[in-house]
């Protein structure tokens, strides 16, 4: 390599920096500013404001709407001594565990695993329909399930000959768990099928040669390869399921709060009943739970990269 001429020195340094268009720091900041402004105003500011609102008795209407008072941690104390909050938290845990951790993960893996052993055409058909449930807008999917589970005319009762079972009234939590599994399995299926594709066939072959059964093959060959994916998948779908508002369209949290998961609880408390301060306090609890899940996830991502 010949020594660069003196005049090209600075520009080479810039190019090494990757700044090939000669953007410069100032202009780069200017390019970045509009996006950051939008994000700060409509994403970051609301979250920070929740901190403050949660400490006030802000209401949607009435005197507390004009002159909200600072009430300190009263909202948090109220929330933590409110049976409805704990009922909601408990339902949310069951909902997330049932539909994300068990439902979507297990079903998604089982489908991905089975689809490696069937004809290509079968696989294409199955994947198409699993994906369809994920892509159809949520307002439509909830109506489809409303029709399916209807008491007098629903297809499910006709198929199972279960008479006039009102699924959404008698089994509201189970209904939204099955519904959310149906909607979200596609993600786990896609993630696990790309993970399974990365398992070297030669290793499976040799495991089979020494007579390992299906379970042994899974435990000793497949699982070590996909362990990272299992964690990623669990964390992501836990986060999404924890934050989904869609079941509102199916049961609206009822009957008698029996499917009142946290997002629906906050909506009804803050925007229906107008208790904005209370609602903010619970929102903050939700954001903190999100933060814990997301931090674990990002740490895992970083570890895998390095």
């Amino acid at each position, binding site marked *: 390599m010949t020594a660069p001429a003196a005049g090209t020195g600075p520009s080479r340094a810039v190019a090494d920096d*990757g*700044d*090939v*268009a000669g*953007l410069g*720091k100032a*202009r780069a*900041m200017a*390019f*970045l500013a509009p*996006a950051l402004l*939008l*994000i700060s*105003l*409509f994403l970051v*500011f*609301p*979250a920070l*404001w929740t901190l403050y*609102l949660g400490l006030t008795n802000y209401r949607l209407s009435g005197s507390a709407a004009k002159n909200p008072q600072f009430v300190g941690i009263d909202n948090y104390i109220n929330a933590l001594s409110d049976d409805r909050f704990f009922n909601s938290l408990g339902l949310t845990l069951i909902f997330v565990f049932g539909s994300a951790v068990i439902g979507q993960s297990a079903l998604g893996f089982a489908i991905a695993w*089975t689809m490696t*052993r*069937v004809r290509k055409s*079968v696989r294409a058909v*199955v994947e198409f329909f699993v*994906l369809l*449930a*994920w*892509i*159809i*807008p*949520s*307002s*439509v999917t909830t109506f489809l399930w409303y*029709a399916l589970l*209807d008491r007098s*005319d629903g297809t499910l009762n006709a198929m199972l000959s279960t008479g006039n079972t009102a699924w959404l009234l008698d089994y509201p939590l189970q209904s939204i768990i099955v519904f959310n599994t149906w909607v979200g399995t596609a*993600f786990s299926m*896609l*993630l696990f099928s*790309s993970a399974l594709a990365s398992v070297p066939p030669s290793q499976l072959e040799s495991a089979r040669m020494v007579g390992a059964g299906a379970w042994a093959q899974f435990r000793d060959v497949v699982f070590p390869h996909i362990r990272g994916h299992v964690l990623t998948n669990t964390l*992501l779908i836990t*986060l*999404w399921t924890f*934050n*989904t*508002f869609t079941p509102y369209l199916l049961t609206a949290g009822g009957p008698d709060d029996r499917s009142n998961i946290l*997002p629906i609880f*906050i909506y009804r408390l803050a*925007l229906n009943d107008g208790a*904005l301060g209370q*609602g*903010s306090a619970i*929102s903050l609890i*939700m*954001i903190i739970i*999100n*933060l814990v899940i*997301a931090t674990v996830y*990002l740490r895992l991502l970083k570890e895998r990269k390095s």
Partner: protein
Amino acid sequence: MTAVTGSKRTAQGESRQMLGHFLGLMGKSVFTALVLAFFVIPVLWLVFAPFDAHPGLNVKLPEFTFNNFKILFENPTAIASLGNSLILALGSMVVVLVLGSLASYSLSRVKIPGRDLLLYTLLLLSSIITGTAAMVPTFLLMVKLGLIDSQFGVILVLSGGILPTVIFILKDFMDSTPKSYEESARLYGAKPLRILWDVVIPLARPGLATIAVWAVVQVWGNFLVPYILLRSPSKSPASVVMYTFYTEGGQPNLALISAFSLLFSIPVVAMYFVVNRRYGFRFHGGIKS
């Protein structure tokens, strides 16, 4: 003698293997059939009811008619709501594409101090401040800004929510576009904005298309944000208006809802599969989260 037992054993082993194979095949088929039933049966209503002269809530082969679509096209609220969904989806798409490509380009080419931290923070924020967790302060903010019942307000909120992910994915695309073209464009005296528009954007087109589709899919089906921020039905998108279609008797208007649901679903389903085939983003994180 030993030879006989040996061959007997192999025969036994073989039949056991065949039995195992048979059971495996059975299990595989039964499982596949159950999975198909679980995912197909709820969707059947969407396939049959729109073309049924007397649609009910149950799934049945239709008495074929296009009349439900006639009912739909004669309903101004329904048609307007699809237009509103389009406005929200395209509006947000334009905002995130413009702001996202400017931001990701500068982040990709210039080492701004604290860049990695910024990207990390953006990703973290967008995953923890979700529409549901931030609905109360967002609602209040829009009240204060006078943006309640404004489609522009909904576009801003939705764009702010998905922009961090957009920047994150687009930066990856920008990082992988070749830089030599920009260098030569610069030698010919092109200004950075011109280089971005004429050189970088065309190169990053697959990435931009992915993002465009992703943004549209996200916004098209979104229920919560327009539900809490819009008041007048004439401004509301299809996802919200769908739940107001009742007959005078208080029953869901199934003729209208079925045709409407189909028309509302087709664009995103078609887009997803077309782009999926063309650019093969079989797995791009949570294309729809």
